[in-house]
């Protein structure tokens, strides 16, 4: 039993972390395109983000899982099976990316424009000042939002059970129907989700403390 749950926990964490990485990359791309100067790309990105946020998560998971093999077949005439893990990662990554892009975009806009101007006045080029001056400040603004969305993502991994990955929820389901002790197994799953949440929150609080170390602690 323990081994089964251990593997299921790894699957849940694997799904969540790989979706997080993909999602953060997508979020940065979406946010930069939406703030960028290319009008068509801006418009397309806004639409994509709207669609992803407008559809039920489970529908996105189904679309990617059942739709991707179909799409590959239409494009290449070859039948490629997309694993539930891959499909789940792409779907959850897209969903995370859509929500997180809005957090990032807001955080980038919240950085005072004088910050960039003083860099410019010192002859520092745009790329360097974005990386060294805007981004660190934006990430600090974005951290609470991104962390919150991570907790949502963690629980959304349960949706991927429906396309057949053996993550925590699916494992609990299978054991329940085999042993007729649903309360026990669902409780085990619940406790594991909560433990991961608590650990995540600790880590996030540490990151937040580190990111705001420069804020006034003593008043002169």
């Amino acid at each position: 039993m323990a081994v089964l749950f251990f593997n299921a926990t790894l699957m849940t964490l694997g799904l969540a972390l790989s979706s997080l990485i993909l999602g953060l990359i997508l979020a940065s791309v979406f946010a930069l395109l939406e703030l960028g100067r290319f009008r068509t790309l801006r418009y397309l990105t806004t639409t994509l983000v709207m669609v992803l946020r407008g559809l039920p998560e489970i529908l996105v998971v189904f679309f990617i899982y059942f739709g991707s093999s179909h799409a590959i077949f239409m494009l290449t005439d070859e039948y490629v099976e997309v694993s539930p893990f891959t499909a789940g990662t792409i779907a959850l990554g897209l969903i995370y990316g859509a929500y997180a892009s809005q957090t990032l975009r807001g955080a980038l806009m919240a950085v005072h424009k004088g910050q960039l101007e003083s860099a410019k006045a010192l002859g520092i080029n745009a790329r360097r000042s974005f990386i060294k001056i805007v981004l660190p400040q934006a990430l600090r603004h974005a951290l609470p939002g991104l962390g919150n969305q991570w907790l949502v993502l963690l629980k959304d991994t349960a949706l991927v059970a429906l396309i057949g990955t053996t993550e925590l929820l699916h494992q609990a389901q299978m054991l329940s129907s085999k042993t007729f002790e649903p309360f026990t197994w669902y409780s085990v799953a619940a406790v594991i989700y909560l433990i991961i949440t608590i650990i995540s929150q600790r880590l996030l609080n540490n990151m937040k403390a580190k990111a705001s170390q420069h804020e006034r602690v003593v008043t002169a």
Partner: protein
Amino acid sequence: MGIEVQGLSKAFGSTTVLKDISFFIPRGETTVLLGASGAGKSTLMRMLNLLETPDTGTMKIAGMNFSFSEKTDEKQLNKQASSLRRKVGMVFQQYNLWPHMTVLQNLIEAPIVQGTPKQDAIIRAKELLDRVGLTDKTNAWPSSLSGGQQQRVAIARALMLSPDVLLFDEPTAALDPAITNQVVEVIKELSQSGITQVVVTHEVEFARKIASRVIYLENGEIVEDGTADHFKNPQTEAFKAYLEH
């Protein structure tokens, strides 16, 4: 080699903010751009380091020549602008220190980008912090400093690149009036080092204390331009009225 501008003008959309501005500032002078709010002082000063691009006119500053017209090539100008900005430092009204970097990191960022070895930049930063009386704040965060201290960090940061010209936008506006005299001292000390300074202000008393030259602006036009003697003997009714208001 001072600052010479000829026929500069600038409009934002349909409002003309500066009209046919010409002046010459000899090297080493401390010139005050004086005038009421909205007169165009900040815009004019921001042209001197190309944070604003003039629509027309010519400008000679820090040994570089610029000429502006509709045909001005943006890319070419941007390249020249970075070299110009290394010779023309600026202290912003709100200082615009980078809050996530320590005082030392704020100072060494620009020189390091320009290829100064980090150790040399640190040595220079410490010298300058000593000069503005902030040695003990080297590793402090900007938010832990008072307004006056932040301003001196901003001045030290601008001096890191050894500019020929230093620009100040309303250096007293964000400060407690009680410490205005400290700003006066800093600016006077700098003028002794031979650097050319241009200071935007709307405060007559402050202007009198620091200026070796004055340019008085109204509605985007120069009304009076001359040495500090003009404070005693204003040549125009408008400037006289402003001094007395």
